[in-house]
């Protein structure tokens, strides 16, 4: 076995170790340790990606001495390696860009606890990406939930604690349903490993045995994960959680945490229940309808909002609606579009949150639009970055958002039954996006005599650098989309 095959396991364990050791360190040391770990994980994930591309097939890694149906297993392919690399990159950039804010808003004595949360969050994301076992997935979903809660409430104001409570309640509902689904699936198939469940579910679906429990199970797992990733009717906790937490947390939560659950759902669709069974069951139509509703309702709420951070948070609701709509369309092309949108949204949303915090800093700390007028001139790099993010969200060519919208439209055209509603909603949602993002961009570039001082780029070099990296990532996704899409297609074909 090649030594690189050890890397997925090593990266998960390394993150956990980082978390454990950070609890004995001071804030500064924990920060450096965390940066080191993130870099190592990124390198390892890149190695895994390269290795799987080279060999052209995925590999499984036995956690312990015992092979397939008895022991735990993790599995890595192109999509897993790519996702892990992408997640760690976004995390590095978000943390670097939000570092100054972090120092301001977090109690220095509790700084090391923040980095414990970050480390364990990354470990759980990696485990969700790599896992090949449903119960392991459940355990790490819990770690993910608790650490995300810690990220929200590390900035201790009344609002964040209330938001954390709401988040925990909704998440616990979701995990309860997910666990119930897993237990029922275990009861019907007798396995917890994805491949074995898949084989047994195929047999059950063909023979028609346990038809009703199987449908209920699929429904519970889908709804549970949808609740956890804030699909439209379950999104009530989201605006507060993203709007008031410290900026790195908001960026990480919006771009990574919900995406981890979505990736798990993708794995369950492909590797546990099976593509044909899950679309034969029509359960995904629920996801489709909720996704469409979310696309419109999220945008409408965002238009009404008077606070820039909350506006971006509501825009997340709409974007998660896009992803679920892609799952609901039920074709391979649509799923590719969804996965691409996961990447594109993660890159764009963290950019928006962080640049918005730069704009807010240039407006005396007020998040109201009236105070933000002309802030694009006062903090130039943040203004440019926000415009790039906004244009990408609206779907201008050259940026990543355009490609994902194009892919969604293509996928919709090929699905005759759902073509019309999808295209109509896509168009309406794009217009709504344009309304609230262009409104903001125009506002931040309206010249005005302001009492707030100009923030020169020199003073925030790290922030500027991170912004440039984010913009580059966004443009890369927009321009080299062929490469990325090919990677996603290869990865999905390895799933089956």
């Amino acid at each position: 076995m090649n030594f690189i095959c050890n890397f997925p396991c090593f990266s998960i364990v390394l993150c956990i170790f980082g978390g454990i050791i950070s609890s004995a360190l001071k804030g500064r040391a924990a920060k450096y340790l965390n940066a080191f770990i993130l870099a190592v994980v990124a390198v390892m994930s890149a190695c895994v990606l390269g290795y799987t591309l080279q060999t052209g097939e995925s590999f499984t890694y036995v956690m312990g001495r015992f092979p397939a149906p008895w022991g735990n297993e993790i599995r890595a392919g192109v999509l897993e390696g790519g996702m892990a690399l992408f997640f760690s990159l976004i995390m590095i950039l978000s943390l670097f860009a939000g570092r100054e804010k972090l120092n301001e808003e977090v109690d220095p004595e509790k700084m090391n606890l923040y980095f414990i949360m970050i480390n364990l969050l990354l470990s759980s994301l990696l485990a969700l990406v790599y896992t090949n076992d449903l119960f392991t997935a459940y355990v790490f979903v819990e770690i993910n939930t608790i650490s995300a809660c810690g990220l929200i409430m590390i900035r201790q104001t009344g609002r964040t604690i209330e938001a954390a409570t709401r988040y925990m309640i909704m998440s616990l509902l979701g995990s309860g349903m997910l666990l119930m689904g897993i237990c029922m699936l275990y009861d019907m198939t007798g396995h917890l490993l994805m491949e074995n469940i898949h084989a047994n579910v195929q047999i059950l679906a063909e023979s028609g045995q346990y038809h009703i429990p199987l449908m209920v199970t699929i429904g519970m797992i889908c709804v549970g994960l949808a609740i956890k990733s804030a699909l439209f009717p379950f999104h009530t906790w989201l605006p507060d959680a993203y709007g008031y937490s410290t900026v790195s947390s908001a960026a990480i939560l919006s771009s990574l945490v919900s995406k981890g659950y979505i990736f798990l759902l993708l794995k369950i669709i492909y590797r546990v229940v099976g593509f044909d069974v899950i679309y034969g069951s029509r359960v995904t139509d629920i996801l489709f309808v909720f996704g469409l509703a979310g696309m419109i309702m999220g945008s409408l709420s965002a238009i009404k909002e008077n606070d820039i951070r909350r506006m971006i948070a509501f825009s997340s609701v709409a974007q998660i609606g896009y992803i679920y709509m892609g799952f609901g369309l039920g074709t391979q092309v649509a799923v590719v579009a969804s996965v691409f949108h996961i990447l594109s949204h993660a890159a764009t949303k963290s950019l928006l949150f962080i640049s918005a915090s730069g704009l807010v800093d240039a407006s005396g700390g007020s998040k109201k639009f009236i105070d933000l007028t002309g802030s694009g001139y006062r903090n130039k790099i943040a203004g440019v970055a926000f415009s790039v993010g906004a244009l990408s969200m609206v779907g201008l060519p050259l940026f990543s958002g355009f490609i994902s919208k194009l892919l969604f439209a293509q996928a919709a055209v090929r699905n005759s039954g759902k073509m019309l509603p999808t295209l109509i909603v896509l168009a309406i949602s794009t217009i709504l996006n344009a309304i609230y993002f262009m409104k903001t961009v125009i506002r931040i570039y309206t010249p005005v005599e302001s009492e707030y001082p100009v923030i020169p780029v020199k003073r925030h070099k790290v922030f500027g650098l991170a912004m440039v990296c984010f913009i580059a990532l966004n443009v890369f996704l927009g321009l080299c989309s062929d490469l990325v899409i090919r990677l996603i297609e290869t990865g999905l074909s390895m799933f089956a």
Partner: protein
Amino acid sequence: MGANLLSNYGEAVAMILFGIGFSNLLFQRNLIKKIIGMNIMDTAIYLFLAEKGYIAGRIAPIIIDGDQSVERYINPIPSGLVLTGIVVSVSVTALMLSLTIRLYQRYHTVDLDKISTMLQKEGR
């Protein structure tokens, strides 16, 4: 309705408890009751699993006198899973309770609706 409802009475009770816990967690306004509801929901799932591992007339999977025949012991997997789950639910409970304490410190109530109204009244 399937044929196995009466013979699966244990699971049926587990499902009823799950429903009660779920709606307590979702609809109760008092945070402490919400947390109790969460615990009920979790234990219901564990009860379901434990029922599924049980096999009539067999004993706990602790090997006695070196007798390793399958016919003698129940299925060990659900027990292991539940063991993992119990620890998860106690840590989540502790976290939720500490959130409750902090919320009470700040807003002097454990009613989540009242807290939201207060927040709206305060404006953002």
